[in-house]
């Protein structure tokens, strides 16, 4: 009988851990999908999956963060300005929800800056002045909270590089910033398996732009 009780406890324990694992495994699987998505529809599907997890969990900021990130990445795949704005609006809704669950979070603030950065690309002539300032402010704030956040530093460097290129200025400052971010990525350990870990490849791409411009 003792054996039975032991086995009962064991199975229910397994059931319980499998429930807790359910969140992590769902997140891991969806993050995997996010990393392999390449079309706007695929990104939308991924964003919808993250939204479902977020709505079911209610108190976790990460699924909202990833949903927002999915929409931002989706905006990279298309050209139409109005459609980009539409995706960025959806990203903004997710970021707003994430901020409510976790204030002063350097990852969420970085994502907010990323949204502003993408807003500029739709209409640089009339939006550049306003949104690039707003994006820089967000990146600056994120670095202020956590100066070891390579994503904040990398995007800040890229934003500054864009301005420097526009003015035909020396990009060594911004490239140094990107290089520092790239170095951080080399032995970067995310806080958990599902915490933001993206950016290494992006930083390498930015680094190659630095190489090309010299």
């Amino acid at each position, binding site marked *: 009988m003792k054996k039975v009780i032991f*086995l009962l406890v064991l199975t229910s324990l397994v*059931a319980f851990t499998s429930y807790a694992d359910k969140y992590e495994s769902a997140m891991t699987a969806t993050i995997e999908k996010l990393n392999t998505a390449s079309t706007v529809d695929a990104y939308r599907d991924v964003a*919808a999956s993250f939204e479902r997890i977020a709505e079911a969990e209610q108190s976790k900021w990460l699924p909202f963060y990833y949903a927002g990130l999915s929409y931002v990445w989706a905006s990279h795949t298309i050209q139409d300005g109005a459609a980009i704005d539409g995706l960025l609006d959806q990203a903004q809704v997710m970021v707003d929800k994430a901020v409510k669950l976790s204030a002063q979070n350097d990852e969420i603030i970085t994502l907010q800056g990323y949204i502003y950065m993408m807003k500029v690309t739709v209409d640089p*002539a009339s939006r550049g002045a306003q949104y690039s300032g707003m994006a*820089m402010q967000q990146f600056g704030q994120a670095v202020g909270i956590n100066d070891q956040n390579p994503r904040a530093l990398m995007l800040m460097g890229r934003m500054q590089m864009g*301005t420097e290129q526009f003015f035909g200025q020396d990009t060594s400052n911004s490239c140094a910033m990107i290089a520092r971010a790239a170095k951080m990525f080399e032995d970067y350990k995310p806080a958990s398996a599902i915490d933001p870990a993206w950016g290494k490849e992006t930083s390498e791409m930015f680094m190659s732009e630095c190489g090309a411009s010299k």
Partner: protein
Amino acid sequence: MKTFAIVLTIAFLNAEAYCQKTISGRVTDNHHQPVFGANVYLKKTYDGAATDSIGGFNFSTSENALQLLVVSCIGYKETEHALDLSKSQESIQLTIDEEINKIDGVTITAGAFEASDTKKSVLLRTFDIVTTAGATADITGVMNTLPGTQTVGEEGKLFVRGGDGREAKTFINGLLVGEPYSATPQNIPSRFRYSPFLFKGAFFSTGGYSAEFGQALSSVLQLNTNDLPARTQTDISLMTVGGDISQTIRKKNTSVYAQIQYTDLQPYYQLVPQTADWQRAPHSLNTTLHIKQKWGESGSLQAYTNYDRSSMSILQPVTGIAADSLRHDILSDNLYTNIALKNSIGQKASFSGGFSFSENVSHVDTENLTLANTSRFMHGKMSVDHDISDGLTLKYGGEWILSNYSESMHEGANDSNQSAHVKSNLVSPFTEASVYFSNKLMFRLGARLEYNDLTDSVQIFPRASMAWKFNTFSQVSVAYGAFAQFAEMQFLKWLPQLNQEQAKHYIASYQYIRDDRIFRAEAYFKKYDQLVTIQSADELSPVIANDGYGEAKGFEIFWRDNKTLKSVDYWISYSYLDTERKYGLFPYVVMPYYASKHNLSVVYKQFISALKSQVGATFSVTSGRPYNDPNTGVFNSKLTPVYKDLSVNYSYLVKPNMILHAAVSNVLGFKNIFGYQYNASPNEAGIYEGVAIEPPAKRFLFVGFFITLSKDKNANQLNNL
């Protein structure tokens, strides 16, 4: 063995949880159209899918009991459906209702021009105000390139749809501005006092505006001040007409902005000859203090104060005596304070309002005559926007406007003094309901009730408008409204019990917006009543009455294209106006001096990335305006020549924090005549002698250099937009 059986059962029970069920179906909207990208899922689970392009969804779940199926999609109301998963499921048909979108859905466009960076389909962007050639960052100058306005070169003010300049009112954060234009001598164009850098958005209405706005017969220009600035910074401007320095300090929830500006046209006038005979060019000292404070989650409090003192001296003919010029010394002091607050009341309502105070004191000294006048306005207003239901928004509130005007005249020759004074109170509650039947059809009905103590009477002014978006790109809208405005102080001082002047607007508008191309056509009819007439020019015993009237009708076309040519943005405005009125000294119904039948503006802007430059050009043509030549014996029967102007501008980003801007008006040197001024009595040959009213100089050249200093090296003054 027994133990094993139990364990096996438990394992089996667990395994049953992995028994998957498929749920599939289709989502359509209330017009039976498939909804793409809707998220369909079981509540409190991760199980679900996004719909495909034909609205279909398909997912599997291991849930087994009664569940709630949620459908959520941006732009639609979220819905939940009960689903019993213990039974087998057939394909599920789901319908979701559109959410009323009050920002990007159907809106009243009749008479409305909005400049905004937040809304998607706007006709103007805030950035346009500083980059339009011919306007040199003058808000009025930009509005004058829009349909519905008539160029009146010697005034520099807004004249809308056959209305006099005083019929167009300016509001900052919903609060009245007493004197929005700088002081100038007669026939010298004035400028708008407030810098476009102060505002994040503008709403310019050429008719049919909301019940919230009163005391304007023709037009309303509503400006909204910026939110908290991004950073602490110092701005320095060096211009051919002067310079300014400002400091912005940003704390977490507060910001303070202080500016001091000095302008003097003397050096410029010495280099570039002027047709006007200046004894001392206009010079002014201007100071601004602007404090902003965040209030809770979404509210704000702000206090703006601007003080300006300008003076100038000019040799000019006195009205009615063209041959003899007299030295006019003009001194003007202007103070404006605006305290505005807004916040939300729960989830469904918000309020905005505040208080403004305007004071304008002007002194004009000629050889032996001194004229001084002071006008003061106080405006208090509070307005609530209340979302009663998804499709019904109610606006209600009230305002109080106190006007106080006094003038005095001192004649040196016989040491005589005369003075006059008039004061009025206007109290007005207003309400307006916006009813949305769908994202395609809406109505707005409102009214304001006005009590004024001069006539001790109460009047009601109704407003009604409707908009119908009949396909994705096109919409029509119609508007009607009754409007009133106090008679001019110059008349009220003689006869305070004069009725308010009245106008009725009827507007029909069509708009098409697709991919950065906008087309708008609008037709209107406007009827004036109770206009004030004066029957004798004799200052001592004039006969003043409310027996004037008039009408204006016309149509306008606007086309803006930001897509066809890369990096090029241009717009074309054409206005046709047919108007006549009897008012002031007019002996009968006639076309007024400020009206012109045809007005055309073409605005062109191009951004050249390689040169870090923006170039712009504005071409305007205005057909002749009537003027009164007493030699003809028929009032206002002659027309001035056609007015033409080509202005260009150039902005260069020297460094991220330095902007160089240059602008020239009338580059081609067209000769423009705004009218003629005649002697009051004929010469010996029986002919009234006259002089042409011309621009103060053929061209105007402006060069400015703007520097921003902050920790963020990339910031510049355009960030304020």
